[in-house]
């Protein structure tokens, strides 16, 4: 049995069901990121693990122990809140020690634990200050310290970085990753930022409208999204999705995409799809990430299958490290990632190369990957 096991979890508010049967598991030392658009139920799910929200059906277990009906303080968890939720009337040291104080840990032991964690998080010089005298990043570290100091079985993070400015967010992200690697803590982390999810997680669970869309490693979720929603939600800029039709000849399948004005573009079916299931004339959605679309020189030399098409350059977005180029196929926008120094101008006609190894097909009716 996994370290953290959630099965058949349902949560209703009156007649509104916000979690519709969630099954999740996480091994010890794992980092599970719950991600989804606002209102998808990810924070509610975290709340049910914490015990701050009751559940309508299902089961939550930590190390095989059913914790459904345990009070939050009895679950041996610690939570880092979005607003940090530091007690304004207490110093940093008192904030960190409060949980232990409530559990009757002797003063000397508390001070020792606080000193240790403060050293890890470089908070030693701040211990006597109050939260109002700290910067955003420092508050964030104190909130993490308060969770760490108790050495709980599971850490819960509720969008901990969303109140920080962009630069600090990246720094703290690295710090959380380092902390996870060093302490081997088991973490459940809620975010709506897919970069945080990709960089931090050992497992990502994508939620939408209270239902799990896909659970897997960041690599799986990114490269083999289970459905159109996951494909579109993960990745920035998001995946190019084009409508097409299947064409079969001599056992091989290709995808035909109508291109306005010119001949239709025909690609061999991507290697990721199960060719046998494709029937002649079936409608499919062809998905390819921007980094798999580039100019001919930039195309991946290791790729087994490259297709090309000629498109009009509509927008050029230099992002520093890369340049994103927007063109279109059949009236649908297609974003390509080029080298930063590529000499490309708006209005030009340009040959684009698609790395079909990275392409995937979806069934438009079910939205699932083929």
């Amino acid at each position, binding site marked *: 049995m996994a370290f953290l096991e959630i099965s058949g979890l349902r949560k209703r508010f009156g007649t509104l069901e916000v979690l519709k049967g969630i099954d999740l598991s996480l091994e010890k030392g794992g980092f599970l990121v719950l991600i989804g658009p606002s209102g998808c139920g990810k924070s509610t799910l975290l709340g049910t693990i914490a015990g701050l929200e009751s559940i309508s059906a299902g089961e939550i277990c930590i190390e095989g122990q059913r914790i459904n009906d345990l009070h939050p303080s009895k679950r041996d968890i610690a*939570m880092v809140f979005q607003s940090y939720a530091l007690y304004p*009337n207490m110093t940093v040291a008192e904030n960190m020690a409060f949980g232990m104080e409530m559990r009757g840990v002797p003063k000397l032991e508390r001070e020792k634990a606080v000193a240790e964690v403060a050293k890890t998080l470089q908070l030693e010089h701040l211990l006597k200050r109050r939260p109002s005298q700290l910067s955003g990043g420092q508050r964030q570290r104190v909130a993490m310290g308060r969770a760490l100091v108790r050495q709980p079985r599971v850490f819960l993070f509720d969008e901990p970085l969303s109140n920080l400015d962009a630069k600090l967010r990246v720094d703290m992200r690295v710090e959380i990753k380092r902390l996870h690697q060093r302490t081997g803590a088991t973490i459940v982390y809620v975010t709506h930022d897919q970069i945080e999810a990709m960089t931090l997680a050992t497992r990502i669970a994508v939620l939408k409208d209270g239902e799990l869309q896909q659970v897997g490693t960041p690599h799986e979720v990114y490269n083999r999204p289970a459905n159109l929603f996951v494909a579109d939600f993960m990745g920035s800029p998001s995946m190019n999705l084009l409508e097409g039709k299947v064409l079969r000849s001599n056992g091989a399948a290709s995808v035909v995409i109508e291109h306005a004005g010119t001949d239709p573009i025909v690609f061999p079916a991507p290697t990721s799809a199960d060719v046998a299931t494709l029937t002649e004339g079936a409608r499919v959605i062809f998905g390819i990430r921007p980094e798999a679309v580039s100019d001919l020189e930039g195309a991946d030399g290791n790729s087994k299958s490259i297709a090309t098409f000629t498109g009009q350059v509509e927008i050029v977005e230099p992002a520093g490290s890369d340049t994103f180029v927007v063109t279109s196929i059949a009236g649908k926008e297609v974003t390509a990632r080029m080298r930063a120094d590529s000499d490309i101008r708006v209005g030009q006609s340009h040959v684009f190369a698609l790395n079909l190894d990275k392409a995937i097909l979806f069934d438009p009716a079910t939205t699932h990957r083929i």
Partner: protein
Amino acid sequence: MSAADLVTAPPRRPTSGQSVITRVVIYGLLLFFAIIYLVPLIVMVMASLKPLDEVTGGNMFALPKSPTFAPWIRAWGEASIGVSDTAGISGYFMNSIKMVVPAVVISTLLGALNGYVLTKWRFPGHKLVFGMMLFACFIPFQSVIIPMAVILGLLGQIGNQLIDATGFSFGFGNPTVNLVLCHVVYGLGFTTLFFRNYYEAFPTELVKAAMIDGAGFFQIFRRVLLPNSTPIIIVTVIYQFTNIWNDFLFGSTFAAGDQSPMTVALNNLVNTSTGVVEYNVNMAAAIIAAAPTLFVYVVAGRYFVRGLMAGAVKG
């Protein structure tokens, strides 16, 4: 012009004729109303520092020719109050203190507890309960006098039975305890309103964090809520202190003779029908009666407005 000149040049201020006139009018009006507001106090202080013949014979705005503290001493410890044997208002002053302090403390604490439950531990029907508590704010004093008298009478009977049984009344039937009860019950609507609105804006995540940290219901209240409630506590204390200290109706109805609070004693002193009317002593007594509320306002007043805003903006 050098750089130094630029730095030291005074900032330009709008000095058009209109703005000067506006300022004169505004400050003139403020000064005028401040004087109007202060006149009664000035007259009282003047009168209390003059011997009686100077008060009755002279101009009430005139400065005392031979200033004396004798009226103050007389008011505090010698003047006869109504038909009572007690001399001076000092005893009644202490009566009021003994009534006000527990009443303010209890009603404030209970209000805070109510506000805490009504915002952070919501139960079905919490809105109805709060609505009914608010109702207490709109009930006039006079209309509760008879029901209150019935209840206090009942408590008095219990007290008598306790005295028969144990020789001690445990506070039942004691006029000061009765008044504390009246004021706590009557004040609860207001204190609950203040604290509920304040805690409505209080971050619930702090309560959740404390729950995960293992703090119980009262520990969260005492360690997290209360220490972060200073502004609203001050507002409530000022409001309750002023109301209870200044109350005359409950005091004159439910306490008699030596047990009366300050307000009733002041009335009895001023309305005394024997001998000459000692205006200077009356004035001194009135100032003494007003002093505690004035003191509370001066010490904590700046929090009053701030706290009222804090509670009012969100909720």
